[in-house]
């Protein structure tokens, strides 16, 4: 019964979404107050319906209702409850339901936190979000219904892919989708502004916090995905330039350009067209990512089961949404006024360079990701574009960007003093060069790449520290100031992590019998034994591995090799001793001993220096974004208090 209720709620949500999508926008165009006023209640109703539907699906999973085809395909009675619940988004149909839930959640937030905006504007924003939601709901109802029944019901489910039976599944997709979907708000604001024919600094001020928060979630989502791959897959990698990873990275790059562009539009009224275009692009790339993952067009470990019919639908949807918004842009953009002038050396110019670099980077990643498709479609054969390409292209583009991070915040709006800036950056430059030359020796061998990475990181660290110190002299700066520097600081931390891991990581593949040791990174790793250990839905071979340094035992790690009942491929559960300055990573390979004999295993051991700085940097970036976004809201409360004070 519950699945049918869930189904019904979904159909109703679709109808509400259509109303929400059409009437408020037409109403805003015609000045029809009644239809404008429909926006908020429609958004709230839609949220309630989709939440209910989602709850029904989750209930079906937790209660092991294998008469629902989707549940039977992705769950199992022996699956632990936590994974039964998160398996809801473990497959195509359920992840779409998560998508629309997030979308309706963001729409709800817009409906609640937009009292101070003009009603017509809010109506248009909510309307656009309603149309997007309607599209997704239609896609679900016609091609990807999670509530389809399986009759007769399966005795037990096929189980969730063992790779997904991990806390990572609980957090990574929701976080990621919060980011993807969050850009729809920036998109909706952009479309609303184009529809109204009004693009001004106020529009930028309203869009900014929403965009920044979406960006924060996307940053965290990508970082979580990377960390999950690192500890789950067993060979120490944390980024593969896989098409689906790229599909999340390109909106992030464009989103970063967008938040910088919004800053300029808000402060100076400039770049309006660029900002609108970026907002459209960021969300378009999110949608494109959705298409790539589900249509079977590209080969990826992350791809959901491919179905060209679904691919056709999403492509049509993409064409309507993106094509429509770009057409609207082409029509309305020329009428938008230009905004303030600025000098050659100014913060505006530097931010423009920043955005050009980010956009070229995003375009390059997109080009590399789609190139195999392009070549194949032209009948020119089959090609693979992998990490060697992306690394060669992406890294050089990032170098000038990293350099600019220190310079930008120093530049004044409209006209900056180059000589003054150079003067203030001198000390940071000196420290950076010293670090580049000297630091690598402290850690290992000197290589130009490590030197460059550390030089740029210290350049950013030093200049950030000096700017903060200087600014503090004139009182406590606002949160947006701290936000900016925290995010930039995060990038420098990230760069340190990447540089040192790439420069100094060590991998050893050894054959270990019980009692044998291997030396790595100054540590001694010893195999104490391997025992069979049962799990809820698997049987594991569990190793006991002792980690010691200088004779002192630091930790005992337990890498496992699991055989899930539902899968034929054995799964590796790595064991990692994580630390501020290094990770020690142990992964069991295959048993090499004859059955019944004493255990001898192939073991892979990694020494990964400073690898946690990679994700630590991402956390700082997210913190920075959160600080910056909360600055706006603080002003909102102050404004409200001021208004109340005035009224009293």
């Amino acid at each position, binding site marked *: 019964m519950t699945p049918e209720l869930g189904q019904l709620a979904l159909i109703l949500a679709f109808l509400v979404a259509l109303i929400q999508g059409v009437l408020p926008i037409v109403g805003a165009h015609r000045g029809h107050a009644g239809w404008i006023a429909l926006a908020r209640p429609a958004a709230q109703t839609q949220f309630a319906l989709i939440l209910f539907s989602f709850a029904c699906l989750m209930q079906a999973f937790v209660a092991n209702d294998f008469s629902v085809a989707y549940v039977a395909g992705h769950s199992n009675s022996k699956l632990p409850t936590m994974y039964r619940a998160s398996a809801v988004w473990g497959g195509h149909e359920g992840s779409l339901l998560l998508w629309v839930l997030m979308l309706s959640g963001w729409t709800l937030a817009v409906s609640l936190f937009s009292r101070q905006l003009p009603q017509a504007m809010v109506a248009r924003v909510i309307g656009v979000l309603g149309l997007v939601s309607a599209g997704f709901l239609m896609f679900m109802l016609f091609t990807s219904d999670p509530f389809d029944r399986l009759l007769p019901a399966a005795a037990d489910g096929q189980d969730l892919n063992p790779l997904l039976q991990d806390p990572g599944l609980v957090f990574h997709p929701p976080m990621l989708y919060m980011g993807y979907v969050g850009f729809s708000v920036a998109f909706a604001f952009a479309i609303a502004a184009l529809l109204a024919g009004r693009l001004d600094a106020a529009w930028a001020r309203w869009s900014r916090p929403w965009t920044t928060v979406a960006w924060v979630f996307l940053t965290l989502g990508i970082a979580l995905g990377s960390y999950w791959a690192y500890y789950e897959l067993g*060979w120490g*990698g944390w980024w*593969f330039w*896989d*098409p689906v990873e790229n599909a999340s990275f390109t909106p992030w790059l464009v989103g970063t350009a967008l938040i910088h562009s919004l800053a300029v539009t808000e402060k100076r009224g*400039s770049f309006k067209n660029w900002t609108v275009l970026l907002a459209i692009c960021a969300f378009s790339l999110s949608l494109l990512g959705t298409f790539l993952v589900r249509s079977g067009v590209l*080969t*990826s*470990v992350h*791809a959901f089961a491919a179905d060209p019919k679904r691919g056709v639908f999403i492509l049509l949807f993409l064409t309507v949404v993106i094509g429509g918004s770009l057409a609207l842009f082409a029509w309305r953009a020329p009428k938008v006024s*230009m905004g*303030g*002038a*600025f*000098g*050659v050396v100014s913060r505006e*110019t530097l931010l*423009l*360079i920043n955005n*050009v*670099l980010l*956009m*070229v980077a995003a*375009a*390059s990643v997109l*080009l*590399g990701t789609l*190139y195999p498709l392009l*070549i194949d479609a032209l009948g*020119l*054969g*089959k*090609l*693979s*574009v*992998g*990490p*060697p*390409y992306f690394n*060669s*292209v992406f890294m050089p*583009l990032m170098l000038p960007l990293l350099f600019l991070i220190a310079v930008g915040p120093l530049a004044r709006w409209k006209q900056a003093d180059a000589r003054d800036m150079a003067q203030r950056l001198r000390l940071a430059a000196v420290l950076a060069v010293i670090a580049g030359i000297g630091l690598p020796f402290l850690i290992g061998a000197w290589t130009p790449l490590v030197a460059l990475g550390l030089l740029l990181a210290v350049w950013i660290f030093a200049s950030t520290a000096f700017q903060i110190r200087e600014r503090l002299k004139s009182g406590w700066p606002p949160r947006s100031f701290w936000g900016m520097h925290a995010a930039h600081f995060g990038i420098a931390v990230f760069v340190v992590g990447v540089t040192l891991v790439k420069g100094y990581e060590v991998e*050893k*593949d*050894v*054959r*270990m*019998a019980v*009692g*044998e*040791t*291997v*030396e790595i990174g100054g540590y001694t790793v010893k*195999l104490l034994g391997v025992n069979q250990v049962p799990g809820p839905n698997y049987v594991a071979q569990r190793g006991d591995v002792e980690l010691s340094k200088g004779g002192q035992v630091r930790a005992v790690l337990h890498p496992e090799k699991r055989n899930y009942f539902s899968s034929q491929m054995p799964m590796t559960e790595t064991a990692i001793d994580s630390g501020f300055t290094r990770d020690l990573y142990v992964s069991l*390979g295959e048993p090499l001993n004859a059955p019944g004999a004493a255990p001898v295993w*192939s*073991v892979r051991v990694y020494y990964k220096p400073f690898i946690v700085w990679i994700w630590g940097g991402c956390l700082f970036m997210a913190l920075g974004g959160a600080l910056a976004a909360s600055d706006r809201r603080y002003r909102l409360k102050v404004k409200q208090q001021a208004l109340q004070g005035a009224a009293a």
Partner: protein
Amino acid sequence: MSRAGFVLSLSLALALQLASAPARANEAAPLADDPVVEQRLLVIAEEVRCLVCQNESLAGSRADLAQDLRREIRSLIKQGKTDKEVMDFLVSRYGDYVRYRPPVKPSTWLLWGGPFVLLAAGLAALVLFVRRRRGTSAALSPEEQREAAALLGEKS
């Protein structure tokens, strides 16, 4: 064989045995027979696609074909082939698809050249844009002047 020859070959065999044995009694031996060859294999394998996997490199894949191909590459390395020769071996059998670093040829000029072209175009557009904006706070166009006059007229 003479006695000296016998002793010599025995010592040689013993020496080789000791050379390949681990330094300490309980130190684990490397999994690979020849770490130098293995190192080269890893570098090459990172650039090669595992054909039967969903986008994994030959280095990490556990698939049967991947193991066979790694075995082939090892033997080619031992025969003294260069990295390029190993790559050519694979490409002549499986096509360019097997390389993760696309070769530079007319069909990939857009791929390799694209980013640079885009960067150049972006910077060029940037320069034009900045130059244009430098003198914008200048006079209004005749249309805008009329508009301004009309607004001012209405106001007063």
